[in-house]
């Protein structure tokens, strides 16, 4: 497995570790607890009981953890070649015949290249297709071709589509059966490979459409999803040293949004609300939360941590997460500046 850092040595003198803009980079911090391939393993478990489940991909089985499913159920696995339009059209067709396809590719290819196919053949026809896409937001250092900064905005805007942005391995494991139980199309942001394990410490249980308060605090309320919930939890811990007490409301289902829980949490007086997402500041969780609050006439102090409206750089993920303000340190600095 390629990782974010390569060690290179020449002669006897050891050079410093180089950073890299590899396509596949681990989002796990050094020493962090992880689980391998939670999506693939959860899908295998589910598929033992659910014979309607099939797997489909477009030349990215190995890089979306669907290879785990393919190995277990080779006759239920459809390799569609490097053809994303075909992939999603065919997924609609096989779903029309009563099967439940879990379809994988990279988020950029689903959201950009195959958008019309998903819109017309899956969402408009309300087909029971489950889309799981790797490299969501800024989880690749490879450059804009592989950085799906806008996937949530695009899929939020698609009628009938349920949109999930899970935080860690535990949540992905729980989201897989929930997606399968839900009738209709679902888009899930996929974290693959060695995926951090975080939420088990919080006694967390994923429920489709539900936001969950992971920790409480009187000064700041993080409203976050996906990778940024992990970062918000770390930031909340670090901010304790500065006597800043931060709550974290995790919103894994971007659509339908748990407006009630969000408004309720934001209504609590005296807290700075900080929406944090691994996504462009346009059209994602931040704007969804802001508009929900406006409509509910709840007006807390409000800040938004997300990716800038620009083509992001190639580089090592830690470098980029610092630069674009979604690393734990950058979040802590921002929150302190806003207080």
């Amino acid at each position, binding site marked *: 497995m390629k990782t974010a850092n390569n060690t290179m040595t020449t002669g006897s003198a050891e050079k410093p570790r180089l950073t890299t803009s590899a396509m596949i980079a681990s989002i796990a911090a050094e020493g962090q607890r992880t689980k391998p391939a939670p999506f693939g393993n959860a899908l295998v478990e589910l598929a033992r009981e659910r014979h309607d489940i099939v797997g489909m991909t477009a030349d990215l089985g190995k890089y979306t953890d669907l290879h785990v499913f393919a190995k277990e159920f080779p006759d239920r696995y459809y390799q569609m070649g490097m053809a994303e339009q075909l992939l999603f059209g065919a997924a609609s067709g096989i779903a*029309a015949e009563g099967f439940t396809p879990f379809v994988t590719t990279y988020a950029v290819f689903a959201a950009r290249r195959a958008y019309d196919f998903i819109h017309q053949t899956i969402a408009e*026809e309300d087909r029971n297709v489950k889309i799981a896409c790797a490299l969501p937001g800024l989880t690749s250092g490879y450059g804009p071709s592989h950085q799906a900064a806008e996937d949530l905005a695009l899929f939020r805007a698609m009628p009938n589509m349920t949109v999930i942005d899970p935080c860690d391995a535990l949540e992905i494991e729980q989201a897989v059966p929930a997606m399968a139980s839900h009738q209709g199309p679902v888009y899930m942001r996929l974290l693959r490979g060695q995926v951090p394990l975080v939420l088990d410490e919080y006694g967390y249980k994923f429920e489709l459409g539900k936001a969950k308060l992971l920790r409480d605090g009187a000064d700041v309320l993080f409203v976050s999803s996906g990778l940024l919930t992990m970062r918000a939890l770390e930031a909340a811990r670090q901010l304790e040293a500065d006597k800043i007490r931060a709550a974290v409301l995790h919103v894994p289902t971007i659509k339908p949004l748990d407006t009630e829980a969000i408004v309720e949490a934001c209504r609590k007086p005296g807290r700075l609300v900080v929406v944090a997402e691994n996504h462009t500041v346009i059209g994602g969780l931040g704007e969804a939360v802001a508009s929900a609050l406006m409509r509910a006439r709840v007006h807390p102090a409000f800040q938004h941590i997300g990716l800038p409206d620009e083509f992001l750089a190639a580089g090592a993920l830690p470098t980029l997460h610092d630069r674009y303000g979604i690393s734990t340190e950058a979040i802590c600095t921002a929150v302190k500046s806003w207080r």
Partner: protein
Amino acid sequence: MTRAELRTNEPTIADRAYRIRRNALRMGEVQGQGYIAQALDIADVLAVAYFHAMRYRPEDPAWEERDRFLLSNGHYAIALYAALIEAGIVPEAELETYGSDESRLPMSGMASYTPGMEMSGGSLGLGLSIAVGMCLGLKRKGSDSRVFTLFSDGELDEGSKWEAMMSAAHYGLDNLVAIVDVNNQQADGPSKQMMGFEPLADKIRAFGWFVQRIDGNDLDAVVAAFDAAKNHEGARPRMIIADTLMGKGVPFLERRERNHFMRVDQHEWQLALQALEHGRRA
């Protein structure tokens, strides 16, 4: 074998084609516009599909054992509605609602609106990919139902069509019958001038398909092609390339130029119906 052929006093396929054309003209008259030239050119293919080749139950459009029909070129909806009405899947009375608010017969075909409409077209190039998935699904279920899909020559410009053609051959989808309507007319002009696709039969054959090219307005040839597609023993998908004539059956429309979205004056609809009737008797 269709039920129609079992009883001698039932309409012939030629009668069906005539009525499909007539239904389409009547719908065109309701709105004063429509893709009527395409409906007239493809009526013979639809007559053979619905009254010779396909297995279905008019009273149960979602019957599990039916053959599926995917209209990829959603703007041909007027033609498919005409066939669905003739097949008894859509009541004839609904013809008067064509394209109106709340109608089940919108101008562009969508699965969510119309019984017997299996996909939402409109955006061109989708149907063959859906068909591939349906064929894979039918094989998984051990079903012997087949998938028929109609698309237009303009859709050959879409890369997804060729993705789907590669995959259909790769998976040996012998339960797939695709029909491409080569009427040589797309939005901006003659299809072959927009983006050359000949030699079409050779290309698709090279993709691994069983290919026939026919005069799509010669009913005997169309019947023979659907039969050969069914009886072919290769584990290959089947393609019928149907060369057709825009406006077929109404001579003054056959001669009209620039007819992708044909302008038909209000008084001409009745003239067209009369010309169609006249041609049938001749």
